[in-house]
């Protein structure tokens, strides 16, 4: 039991986990993720293995969770084990042992006092122990690895717990429409959505002007774009996609309007009186014919607007048209036309408090690394005729630095 526990908290297991997680991650990037199970069984010789190891959904598989769980246990144990010795070494009275092959940097003509003074200006604090002089700097850096490890633990836990409680969704709005968040007691109204173009008609940016409404009052007005979400009550709203919606009008032989509604690209509507399905194949604001005779748009600017429409009668293909907003076509006496195309916006919303923990973990991680690599503890042992640079992390670099201070 004891042995198992010791292994669970050992660097040995840590290294094994590093290797396994890396291999697992490499394999996951070589396989398409999230397809139906049958796909893997058919396409790959090792389909069953892929499924068994959860590699088709690598990061929500039980294997990955198990690996992460073990990593956290291992890392927590490892870190906890180290803390007592670090606390001991952090004490002011602590001095490290001198290595046998340590290089004595003392040169004739040096003076103890001068060395003390020079290094004191570089931040070394001097004390005496058993007749030797010890200079020390950056003792705090002893905790670098611990701070780093705690950062990792917080990141992994924060992301798992965060994802578990995170709340995400997607909605489309046309200008004037609103989305209501019942559990939140507010709604989001799209005042306007527009695209800003550059001279070459390519897209510069997408803008959604949003109002947040509560009990009929506007409590917030914000314009969001890609890279600038709106935040409200812990929920972030992101500009994510867009599309065109176009007005379909059908009039009968007497000129009465019998249908008037918006259709999105690739959306169909069934018109009962004529048993007609009208499919808006697409709206092409800057229309041109592409190769193999498919309509395409050169940009999202309404330079040469056209609609491509396909009709199905009793479920059978009946006809297709490419028309502009001033044109119409008739089917069994009904006049069908498209016009008034508007952009709608696609917004993602997400609430994930785990993110703030992950962020905290990242800050600790970076601070810990900086401590471990740069503000690691540095000791200088000074006796008459002897001068040593002592450190665990970077003996060579610290020795070199010390030599430079005295032009050795």
């Amino acid at each position, binding site marked *: 039991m004891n042995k198992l526990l010791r292994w669970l908290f050992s660097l040995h297991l840590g*290294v094994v986990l590093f*290797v396994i997680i890396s291999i697992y991650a490499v394999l996951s990037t070589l396989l398409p993720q999230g397809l139906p199970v049958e796909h893997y069984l058919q396409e790959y010789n090792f389909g069953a293995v892929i499924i068994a190891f959860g590699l088709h959904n690598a990061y929500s598989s039980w294997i990955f969770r198990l690996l992460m769980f073990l990593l956290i246990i291992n890392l927590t144990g490892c870190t906890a084990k180290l803390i007592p010795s670090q606390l001991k070494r952090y004490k002011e009275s602590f001095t490290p042992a001198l290595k046998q092959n340590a290089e004595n940097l003392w040169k004739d003509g040096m003076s103890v006092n001068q060395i003390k003074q020079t290094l004191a200006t570089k931040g070394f604090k001097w004390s005496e122990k058993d007749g030797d002089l010890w200079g020390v700097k950056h003792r705090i850096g002893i905790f670098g690895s611990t701070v780093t490890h705690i950062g990792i633990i917080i990141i992994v836990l924060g992301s798992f717990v965060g994802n578990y409680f995170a709340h995400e969704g997607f909605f489309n709005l046309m200008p004037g429409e609103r989305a209501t968040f019942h559990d939140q007691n507010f709604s989001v109204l799209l005042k306007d959505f527009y695209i800003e173009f550059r001279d070459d008609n390519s*897209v510069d940016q997408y803008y959604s002007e949003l109002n947040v409404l509560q009990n009929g009052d506007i409590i917030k007005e914000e314009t969001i774009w*890609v890279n600038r979400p709106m935040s409200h009550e812990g929920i972030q709203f992101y500009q994510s996609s867009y599309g065109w919606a176009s007005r379909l009008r059908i009039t009968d032989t007497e000129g009465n309007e019998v249908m008037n509604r918006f259709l999105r690209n690739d959306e169909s509507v069934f018109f009962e009186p004529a048993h007609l399905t009208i499919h808006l194949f697409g709206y092409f604001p800057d229309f041109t014919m592409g190769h193999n005779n498919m309509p395409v748009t050169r940009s999202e600017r309404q330079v040469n607007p056209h609609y491509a429409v396909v009709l199905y009668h009793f479920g059978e293909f009946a006809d297709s048209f490419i028309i502009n907003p001033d044109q119409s076509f008739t089917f069994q006496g009904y006049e069908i036309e498209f016009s008034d195309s508007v952009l709608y916006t696609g917004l993602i919303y997400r609430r994930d408090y785990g993110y703030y923990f992950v962020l905290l973990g990242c800050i600790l991680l970076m601070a810990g690394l900086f401590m471990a690599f740069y503000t690691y503890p540095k000791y200088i042992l000074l006796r008459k005729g002897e001068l040593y640079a002592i450190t665990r992390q970077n003996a*060579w*670099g610290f020795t070199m630095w010390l030599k430079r201070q005295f032009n050795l």
Partner: protein
Amino acid sequence: MGLLFYEELFFMLAFAGYIVASIAFFVLLVSAKDKIGKFAVAITTVGFALHTVAMVFRVIESGRLPFSNQYEFANSFTWGIVLCYLFIHFYYRFTAVGAFVMPLAFLMMGYASLLPRHVRPLMPALQSRWLTIHVGTAVVSYGAFAVACGLSVIYLLNSRKSNDEQKKKLLPDQDAVDFLSYRVTAFGYLMLTIVIVSGAIWARSAWSRYWAWDPKETWSLITWLIYSLYLHLRFNRGWKGRPAAWFSIIGFACVIFTFIGVNMYLPSIHSYV
């Protein structure tokens, strides 16, 4: 003629400079003549200055840092490699390292020269101040890993070389190479951590999630794990010398794959080519 013409001109001059420098460094290894080393470093420095001028022209013309397509990354990456090398040279007086670093710079620049180089405005997802931090740190991080890789190659070659006295004088002491490679890796690792963290923060503001296991993200994490392994084995198990050198080379292969391979072989929303 526009600034981009001059950008191309200076780019080509710098490229030529790096080729000459690479050759000179190799001559240095064979001949062990001090003068050739001085010449190689001088050419590298001049090439670097020309390269910097080329980049400045592009920055003026495009109105932003050259961080937004594969050509610009490769170009900045080259610049980062040479910058790190020159720093190592002038700070630690490690001249011969150039023999294994400059060819990397020259290959990367050659790769850049094959890519389309027109200045395109930034697509919406790239319009963020995080772009500067994310790619800026990536440039130095990758540059540092390239230098660590060059040092490791030297270490491996040197550890089986004859005891030719003159060459020994030229090549730095093995312990120093080993240590320096470690220090440079540690720096690159810290920078890589900032790359990944800033990327996550940026991804959250652009795409709503901070981490989605997209192949580019995953590969940067794999690279990071490999260097984590390196640091732990070195620090706790005393893996120095040859195994550490091999690790460093494998790590750099991962860096290159993350940078080029992922775009070529794996589908990713990160592929801005």
